[in-house]
């Protein structure tokens, strides 16, 4: 086809675009993905046995706040990474804020009098935590990829890492309802590793799965 014919065709096929289309595409997919992650948590892992008591514990709220903050910045990253020409440094830098906050909290807990550092850092599930976070994150990662393919990511590895960071943080949020750990050093180390693991998976797969 000649280029001028193509232009005529595209021009004749011009529907108005509603504002917020990108965010709607992303949110829709991500809600589905989150439902998948919750299902994995409830069926494969199970809600924590002391859930009723934990709802009012500091540890639970700290985990939720930490992972929610990372997921919120992650969502922002994903939204930008799907738009050509958008600058990524600022949301990238914002990721440091929650990490810094939990690092400070972890340092406080470890330097408190009578602190048992190995227990604070290793808890009782350090061997599986990061892997289970990534497992819980997988449905959300798949949904985020699906949505990103409908946007226009131009740096595929970076887009995959962004999707992985978001999905990892969302997965860790969901995983919080299974895991009984509540110490800041544990969460700051193993949850963060689980999120980074998911980001690595996303970065690796991005090149192959995000092409459009």
């Amino acid at each position: 086809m000649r280029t001028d014919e193509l232009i005529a065709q595209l021009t004749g096929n011009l529907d108005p675009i509603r504002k917020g289309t990108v965010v709607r595409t992303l949110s829709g997919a991500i809600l589905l993905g989150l439902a998948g992650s919750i299902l994995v948590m409830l069926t494969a892992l199970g809600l924590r046995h002391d859930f009723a008591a934990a709802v009012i514990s500091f540890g639970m709220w700290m985990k939720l706040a930490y992972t929610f903050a990372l997921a919120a910045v992650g969502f922002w990253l994903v939204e930008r990474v799907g738009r050509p020409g958008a600058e990524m440094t600022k949301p990238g830098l914002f990721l440091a804020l929650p990490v810094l906050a939990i690092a400070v909290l972890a340092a406080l807990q470890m330097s408190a009098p009578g602190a048992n550092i190995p227990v604070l850092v290793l808890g009782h599930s350090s061997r599986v935590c990061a892997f289970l976070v990534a497992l819980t994150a997988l449905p959300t990662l798949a949904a985020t990829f699906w949505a990103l393919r409908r946007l226009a990511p131009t740096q595929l590895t970076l887009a995959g890492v962004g999707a992985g960071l978001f999905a990892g943080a969302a997965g860790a949020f969901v995983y919080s309802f299974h895991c009984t750990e509540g110490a800041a050093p544990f969460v700051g180390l193993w949850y963060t590793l689980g999120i980074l693991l998911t980001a690595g998976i996303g970065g690796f797969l991005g090149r192959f799965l995000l092409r459009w």
Partner: protein
Amino acid sequence: MIAQEAQYRDWMLAALTGDASAYRMLLEGLTRHLRSYYARRLDPGAAEDAVQETLIAIHVRRATYEPALPFTAWVYGIARYKLIDEYRRSKRHATVSLEEASDLFSHDATEVALARRDVSKLLAKLPPAKRQLVKDIKLDGVSVAEVAKRTGLSESAVKVTVHRAIKSLNDELVQNRENRDADR
């Protein structure tokens, strides 16, 4: 700030609300930049394909343009992605440097118009049948298969004719330059 930013952005914003005439001007303007961008980086056949692919991508993905961000950077992001895509497909290992969006927009319409005038003067030296072939394939981006179908020639005959015509024009240009240099 790129000179065309304000004009193109206005057209794009109008297009997003469904204004077809603004959209046409936008796509026509962008086509000129894209042609020269890809012509400097790809083989002639692949270049026009890349222009069309980029136009389609711009159309299909137009919802990803965020009005708070520069429009030229958005287009450049897509153009660069399609260039990398083309290299990947042709298994050519090339690095695409992180140029600025200005690289896409530095070749403007006047320059193209002047070049077109020179080209049409040159083309006038060819016999009419050959001239039409060269014009269709090299300037208007018609595919070889289509021209072959229309003229009844085989695809390879079309390619060979165009190739010879270009070569004869090229020889003529060289000849002219040598004559001019000799006159001095």
